[in-house]
């Protein structure tokens, strides 16, 4: 039987959730035996080369590109998992949601103490840059998400248990201590 195929991505996240995947430590060598990796920053495959069984999503959507990537994941993965607080509810980046994006840009590029030289008032706007969304959106508001793994980041043990359960079809152990956000 061929191995289940795993893909991962980081949208508007901090990469901490991916670091938590690596925190399964020596089990990463077991994981390599258990699943085949496809598109993922961990392995450097940057485009889907085949349909996948499991997709892990870190981060919510803060720009048009995030949305594009998330939809691409939905299309290519049978099961999608929101990994961590940012994917589940926007997380820290969603703190900008109550504030007009214009104010955020002005603070960063016009008002700070080290943009004194920006006398012509440049704010990045090149066509090469993706569109910022009005808000940061949790993944399940953009596509259907099958499972949520809480935590910021979710603990390595929780990620490991969940992957093993998804791969083997066995019921997942969920002791009280692992079901918390931080």
């Amino acid at each position, binding site marked *: 039987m061929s191995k289940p195929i795993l893909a991962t991505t980081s949208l508007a996240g901090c990469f901490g959730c991916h670091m938590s995947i690596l925190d399964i430590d020596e089990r990463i060598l077991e994981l390599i035996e258990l699943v085949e990796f496809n598109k993922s920053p961990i392995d450097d495959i940057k485009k889907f080369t085949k349909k996948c069984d499991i997709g892990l999503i870190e981060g919510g959507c803060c720009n048009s590109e995030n949305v594009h990537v998330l939809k691409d994941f939905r299309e290519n993965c049978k099961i999608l998992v929101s990994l961590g607080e940012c994917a589940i509810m926007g997380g820290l980046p969603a703190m900008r949601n109550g504030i007009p994006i214009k104010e955020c840009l002005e*603070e960063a590029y016009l008002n700070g103490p080290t943009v004194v030289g920006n006398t012509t008032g440049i704010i990045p706007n090149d066509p090469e840059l993706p569109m910022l969304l009005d808000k940061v959106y949790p993944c399940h508001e953009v596509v259907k998400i099958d499972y949520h793994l809480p935590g910021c980041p979710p603990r390595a043990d929780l990620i490991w248990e969940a992957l093993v359960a998804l791969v083997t079809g066995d019921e997942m152990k969920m002791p009280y201590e692992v079901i918390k956000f931080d």
Partner: protein
Amino acid sequence: MGQKITIEPVTRVEGHGKVTIHLDNEGNIAQTRLHIVEFRGFERFVQGRPYWEAPVLVQRLCGICPVSHHLAAAKALDVIVGAGTGDGLTPTGEKMRRLMHYGQFFQSHTLHFFHLAAPDLLFGIDGDPLKRNIIGIALENKELAVQGVMMRKYGQEVIRATAGKKIHGTGAIPGGINKHLSEEDKEYLLNGDDPINIAKMIDWSQAALEFFHDYHKKNKDIIDEFIDFPSSYLSLVRKDGALDIYHGVLRAVDPEGKKILHDVDYQEYYKYIDEEVRSWSYMKFPYLKEIGTKTGWYSVGPLARLNTADFIDTPLAQKEFEKFKAYNNGKPSNKPMHYHWARLIEILHAAEKMKELLNDPDLLEGELVIKGNKSYEGVGLLEAPRGTLFHHYKINDNDQIEMANLIVSTTNNNQPMNEAVNQVATKMMTGKQKITEGMMNAVEVAIRAYDPCLSCATHALGQMPLEITLLDQNNKVIDNKTSV
């Protein structure tokens, strides 16, 4: 779907980092750009939050080196709560933070070397991209993969023991630290079962350097000749000129080693540094004010630190530092691939420092926190694994943050990375109408030397999805390629 999202249709592939190359009439390179395409707005949305939240909030900009943000914010808040500017803490407070920071260096640098750089070295710059990764290493050379995984684990365990949690911990608080090191963790980290003990970590750090020296001897074309351009270098150094990643003064040297920023107090960093905004990238371009935007840019990170520091205060790393200096005739190395070399020397230094600290009784007992007279503004600065990190906060009478300014390490390397891309592209693509896989990899290898943690300014684990577009003089796309 509950809410309406207004989105432009996106046809281009995922790309946090993107390179564009413009050609002139003769087919020569007219311009190259490394675009950074993410924006967060942190400076604005943190306003109004209570100041003591900063160390736990800001670290969520970057899960690869959260400790650096955690500590830089805490150092800025030390100033605000009147606990001095970096050297006013209790011995326990300062040493616990230092141990956390060396643990962070150790894990972040090993992550970069084994997971990101080693694959290029083992499989070659134009090796099979499907193999050029840690999984490829695990299948090819299991021992090396195990070393990489376990060294990173050790660093993460040090962070857990000092910050309470491997990622996004809570150890540092304004004016100090919230706990002691436990006897149990001390014993575990010093003398744990093989390989989790400090002796093994020092051994393996030396072995990694040996691996590099051996590779260097056989591949001078890649390490010495592949990229080479003059740059200035900036970093923190201890007052006596020693390498110090936690506290000190700001120094910058020019490509020849002449000091251009003379060991200044970083509380006034904004007098010396400004950032240029360019329309085509969300990442700003810092420069030394006195010199100006054109040539005032500088590099930061492992290579910059070894280029600015006078010596290293641990014996094994100092020996390696001397070799490094001798190889470069006592001058700064202007070869970005030497970043890898410098990074490995710092891994060894961090291991030696952790050993010193783990044996220090101050970690087990003593006052944790110190407080003095409140002030309304503070700057926290330290050397993150990828380079100098600036945090600057102002608060109001209600203890709310009123202003936040951050210059993250990778932002400091913005211009140097653009220079490196330009050099490699010019060398490999002049007169060519087609992008080859080898060229793509070469551009990536050049960027990767800087270990760009785009997670701070954006995200993506060094291995960024890269899209290269080749345009002719009329901005018509001639070729477009995305790395696999």
